[in-house]
Structure formats: C-alpha cells, structure tokens
C-alpha cells in the first residue's frame, strides 16, 4: 500500500500542476486526495531507530494545504488547545510562504516541530475540520499536523531559527522545575519578560518525556535539543541533577535562594502497576523503565551503552495508549521476535494516536483486544514465563461515556512470554507535595491550581502540565506553561510595584 517518497512527490507534482491555477472552487479542493505521509518501509524501520515518518515534500505540503477550505468559522481552531491560527498558517503554506507560515504558528505554540509529530490531531483540530466532516471521515480531514511539521522542519533546515528577543533585566530570579514541554514554554516566556530564569531538572538531560519517554523513531532527540539550545541562547540557565524536594526544597528556593517565583512542571512520573500477582518477577518492567533504558540511557546501542537491556523473545505490553505503542515498537526494534499489545477494550477505545496504531500494525505488532491480565506467571528462578488473561466483552458506557470491559467467567487462558511491559499510565510523583509546606494537591496528588492563572495555593508558586492535569498531552502541557508564565509575569510586576511603594 505505502509508496516511496519519490512516487508520492511525483503524484503531488501532477496535482500541483493541475490545481495551481487560481480560483479553486471548494468542490475542487474537496476532490484533492489526502497526501500520504512518506515513511520508512516497515521491514526496514524495524531494524533501526530512525524516524518512521519522513515528512512531506514541498509539492505535497502545497497540495495538502490546497485542501483547506479557509472556513470563516475555522472549527479547527476550536479543536486546538492553544488556538493556533490554523487557516492562517495553511493559507501561507499553500502559497509556499513557509517563513510566515511558521511565524503564524509560533504566535501560539512554542514547539511546532514537536507538536506536528506527536499531537493527537485526529481528536483535536482534525476532528473538527470541515473537510473531514464533509467526507464523513476524520482520516480525510486536512492533515493539519503534517503541514505544521513541514513548516517547522523547513525553518530548522533553512537555518532561520530566530532567538526570541529578551527584555532588559528585571533583576528578579525565577525558577522552573522540570524541563518538559510545560517548563520549556514557561521558561521561554518568563525569560522573554527579562527575568533571570533557572530551570531545575532531576535527570542528566533536559526535555522531560520528550527525551526519556518518546522514542527516537517518533521524535528525534535533535529536535528537542534544538529547542533547548534556543532556551540557552536566550539566557535560560539549566541546572541538571537537581531534584527539587531533595537537593533543595521549594521552601528553600523561595526563602533561602532568592527566587521570587517558581513554576512546577514536574510531570506525571510515577508508573502505575496493575497490582496483580507476579508483577515483581524478573522480566516485568514499567514502560517508563523500558523506554528510559532505551532512550535516555541509549541502551539500544548495545555495543556502546553501559546500561543493560533485557533480552526478549516474546513480549506482552499491557495498555493501549501512546506509551504502550512506544514500548511495543521499541521492543520490536530491540530484537524481540513477537510483540503483543494486551488491551482490555477494543481498537475503538484505544487512546493512542491513530498514526502510531497504524504504524504498529505495519511493524507486525499483534493486538490482543478484550484481554485483561490477571496474573503473571514465573519459573523457579523468578523469571516470567507467561501471563494469565481473561477475555472481556464491552459493557454499558460508564460516566465518562467509555464502555467498560466486563470479564467473561471461565474464559481464562495463558499467553506465554518472557517479558511483560506495563504501560497503563502514570500518576503524579509525590516528592514535591511531600516536601513542600503549604502546597495543596487533590486526592490523586495533582497540584491544585487556579484555572485562569495556574497559581497554586502558595503565593508566587505556579504549576502546569502533567503534574496538574494527570497524564495528558504535550500541547496541553505547553498551553499551561504559557498561561502560568503570563500570570507569573503579572504577579512579578505587581510585586515590584508593591515593593517600590513600600520602600
């Protein structure tokens, strides 16, 4: 089914010649086929870590952009968590004005090269896109994410990366905890306002989940590094190996170290387990551990890496989200003969990005739907030998509208395997909560914030991203980082005035 990049480009060029005359009618636009994303052939990519999706060619991006109807109401914008001017940047891309197109995106989003690759567009902007509605198929909506990716990459490849201007120093020192998308965005916006910004990251590398979780084949690390360079060039200082709560507490930073305000973007880094028997056997890993070993510690490079990886032949991955897809596809690349996704519901309910599921299928990942793990079995050396599962059927929808799985009595069976990867989500790490006096969290340990300002219960302390939302998305984390920075800048300005009049 899939075609080479050359074939796709040639097809697009034909379409471009045909449609480039001005005055395209909506009917014509609707007749243009969705441009397929060129990608590495499955049988090749399962043997390397390089990016799967190769990105549109110039002809493709222009043809795809011509599919946009430039709706006056722009329902796509309503689907975008940060309200990017989508018809605006697409119109510019259709004209080949990529510089202004990317500038338009950057008015609202700080990390387009990341979001173009990892946003769940089919449940956001592309879900509400008119073109998809007309075709009664969300897969036929304008490929907004692919266009976004193209213009973001175009900027990177044309060496036009600009360093956002920084206002003159306010003399205030502001801390940003964590270095994921929420913190990167907050740091940039705070620095722009002229504050001294210090970013505290627990690990020896910055980028959060973008670096330790999401694999190279989906989001090349150089893209995240590039964004971090921009932050450094703006003057943001990154302190690695700094675990807030242990190396110094929030109270220490505010009272002793002279920080006027703090943003907490510490993510949802506490892996959930199912709490079924056998989960501590040898060969059972959280997806976080499995992916961190491979990505952050580069254990996929077995010849060079000091960090070991488990040799797997047959792998079962529990879960149906992006994390599960990433773990399964990583296991395949690391040499497993057979990799299965074990999910309690059906493909309909799977929260993973559509594209990742398609890619996983192409790579030979086996999907076992309506299977619920009950027990992990091991041998006398404590090594995993299999998983006892029970079959399920879908019951009535629950309060969230999702149909919940109901176990079918007597349908237990054993699936053999030597490795189990548990990818059923993350909770919030309680370290900051436990070591900070006066910080309010909810029942699940998420930091409680004001919806408009992201202010926490502590004056001068703000929070955003997964630590507030639970495991969410890159774009939502980014949105909150921006919202918080805006409120922090206002807070610091107001403080200055109060401070000024008092002395």
């Amino acid at each position, binding site marked *: 089914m899939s075609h080479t990049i050359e074939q796709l480009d040639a097809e697009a060029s034909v379409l471009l010649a045909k449609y480039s005359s001005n005055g395209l009618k909506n009917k014509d636009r609707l007749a243009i086929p969705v441009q397929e994303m060129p990608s590495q052939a499955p049988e090749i990519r399962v043997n390397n870590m390089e990016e799967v999706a190769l990105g549109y060619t110039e002809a493709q991006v222009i043809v795809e952009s011509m599919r946009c109807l430039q709706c006056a109401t722009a329902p796509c914008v309503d689907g975008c968590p940060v309200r990017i001017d989508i018809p605006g940047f697409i119109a510019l891309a259709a004209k080949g004005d990529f510089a202004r197109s990317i500038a338009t995106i950057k008015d609202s989003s700080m990390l387009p090269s990341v979001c173009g690759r990892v946003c769940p567009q089919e449940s956001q902007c592309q879900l509400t896109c008119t073109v998809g509605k007309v075709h009664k198929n969300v897969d036929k909506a304008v490929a907004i994410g692919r266009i976004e990716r193209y213009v973001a990459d175009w900027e990177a490849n044309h060496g036009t990366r600009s360093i956002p201007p920084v206002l003159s120093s306010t003399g205030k020192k502001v801390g940003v905890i964590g270095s994921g998308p929420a913190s990167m965005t907050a740091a940039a916006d705070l620095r722009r306002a002229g504050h001294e910004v210090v970013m505290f990251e627990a690990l020896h590398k910055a980028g959060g989940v973008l670096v330790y979780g999401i694999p190279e084949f989906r989001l090349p690390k150089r893209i995240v590094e590039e964004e971090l360079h921009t932050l450094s060039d703006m003057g943001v200082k990154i302190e690695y190996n*700094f675990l807030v709560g242990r190396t110094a507490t929030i109270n220490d930073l505010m009272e002793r170290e002279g920080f006027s305000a703090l943003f907490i973007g510490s993510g949802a880094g506490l892996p959930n387990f199912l709490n079924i028997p056998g989960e501590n056997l040898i060969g059972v890993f959280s997806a976080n551990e499995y992916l961190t070993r491979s990505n952050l*510690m580069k254990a996929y490079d077995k010849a060079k890496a000091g960090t070991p990886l488990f040799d797997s032949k047959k792998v079962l991955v529990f879960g149906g989200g992006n994390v599960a897809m990433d773990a399964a596809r990583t296991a395949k690349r690391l040499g497993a003969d057979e990799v299965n996704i074990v999910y309690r519901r059906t493909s309909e309910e799977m929260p993973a990005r559509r594209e990742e599921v398609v890619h996983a299928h192409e790579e030979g990942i086996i999907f076992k739907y309506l299977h619920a793990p009950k027990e992990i079995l091991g041998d006398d050396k*404590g090594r995993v030998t299999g998983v006892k599962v029970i079959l399920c059927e879908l019951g009535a929808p629950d309060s969230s509208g999702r149909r919940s799985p109901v176990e079918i009595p007597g349908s237990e069976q054993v699936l053999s395997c030597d490795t189990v990867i548990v990818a059923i989500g993350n909770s919030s790490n309680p370290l900051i909560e436990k070591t900070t006096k006066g910080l309010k969290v909810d029942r699940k340990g998420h930091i409680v914030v004001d919806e408009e300002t992201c202010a926490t219960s502590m004056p001068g302390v703000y929070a955003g991203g997964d630590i507030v939302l639970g495991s969410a998305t890159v774009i939502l984390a980014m949105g909150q980082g921006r919202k918080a920075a805006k409120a922090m800048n206002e807070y610091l300005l107001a403080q200055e005035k109060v401070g000024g009049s008092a002395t």
Partner: protein
Amino acid sequence: MFTIVDKRKMSPEVFRMVFTAPYIARSRKPGQFIIIQQGGDYSERIPLTIADADAEKGTVTIIFQAVGAATHQLALLDPGEAIANVLGPLGQPTHIEKFGKVICVGGGIGAAPLHPIAQAMAQAGNELKVIVGARTKDLIIMEEEMNKISDDVIICTDDGSYGRKALVTEPLKELCEQWKPDMVVAIGPPIMMKFCTQTTKPFGVPIIVSLNTIMVDGTGMCGGCRVSINGKTKFVCVDGPEFDGYAVDWENMMMRLGTFKTQEQKAHHHCHIGLNIKEGEA
C-alpha cells in the same frame, strides 16, 4: 561541577573519593544516597551511598568498590577531574532516636554508609556496639572511624585473616543473647542482611536494613528499584532505601538483582582490563 578533591585507595578494589557538591553536602542526612552518571551519553547511572559530607566545605565523601563497568570508570578519575553528574541526596533519611542499646552491623562496603548512621545513633544518646565484617582483611574498612564512636567494635573476617574468623551473624547472635539490644541496623550484601534478620528474629529485636537494588533514575519514575515489603510494592529510591528487615521479601529482592546478569558480566569483563592497564602504568 562535581570536582574531585581527594581520592584514596583503601584496598585493591575499594576507593574513597571526596568531591564538591554543595547542595548535597548541605541537605543530606544519614541513610541517604546519590546517583552518579559518569559522563558521556552511554554511561550507566549507578546508586552509591554517602559515607560522609562536610556542609561547610561543600564536599561529599563516597566509598565504593570497583565491581562493575560504571564503578571502574569512576575509579579512573583523579583529583582535579570532575564527575559529570551527581544527583542527590536521595531516599528517606534514617529514623534516628534514642532507642537505648543499638547494634550497627556493616558487611564489606556497607560499613561506609553505616558510619554516619552509627554516629547519629551515638549522638542521639544510644549505647552503641558495632560489628564490621568482610571476606578478608584487605576489605575491612571504617575500623578507625567506628572506634571513635563506639567502645566496642567487633571485627570479623570470613577467612580469619583479621579479627574473629566468623560471619557477622555470630557476634550478632551473642550480643542478642547477652546484651539484649533494642535496635539493630544492618547494611551490607543482601545475603548478609537476610541472615542478620534471621539471627535477630528469635529475640524480637527490630532490625533496619538498607537495600541496594537496581536503579535507573532514582526519582521514583521507573520502578526498576521496586521490592516487595509486607506484600506491598515499594520503590527503594523514594520509599527506602531503609526498610524493616522482617518485612522484606528477600528471595524476590535477590532474584531481581540478577535481572541483567548475563549482560553485566560481559560489560564488566571489558572494564577490568582498562583499569588494570592504568594501574600497571602508574
């Protein structure tokens, strides 16, 4: 910058290193540990216990045995050079209070992290006895330091080359019988800690052990360090490293330590060669 200010070889495989780490020096408490990543994209992150720290000078002391690839790499660094990444202090500090009579048992390299705990126990007004054991004389460490804080330091070696020819559990049992301690703290190889718990159990003495499991991040993010405590899963890096010795599922903990056995043996082989060459030249 974690610059090494002092390095000493305590025995052929055991090194003592002092490096600057002002925040850690200031925040750390007995019982806590650090994670080191020696630099370069490919190095492993390894947990190491803190043997001592000087908050004023801003330095931290570690004592480690060069047993794996990463510790060998670390041992090659000299004063003036810097350790690329040091994260800490990690884990919960030891719960120190006046229990009454306390026995501190250290096996091998475990005597190093035991020292600050023993010291704090003495300072809290406890009567203190210390047992230090190792395979052979060369591997006995911290004897002098322990003598400064306790009048009764018992040394044992497996081969009898120094002190008593005995496992640490022998004097431990005798002291349980005769001295009747109120609390025991044991740090050392898992098998030693397991046997210490078996020794103290009949006497109903509480025993605290410090677990050194496989770790990656040390922040609670990966779960690789998990152990079963009273049937509940706990993360050693955030909930530990110290636990009630009777609550630990030792069998599972020791099996999990062997998760990457085959891979590690391969890696270790390469590094040993590197270290020996350097020693030969020096």
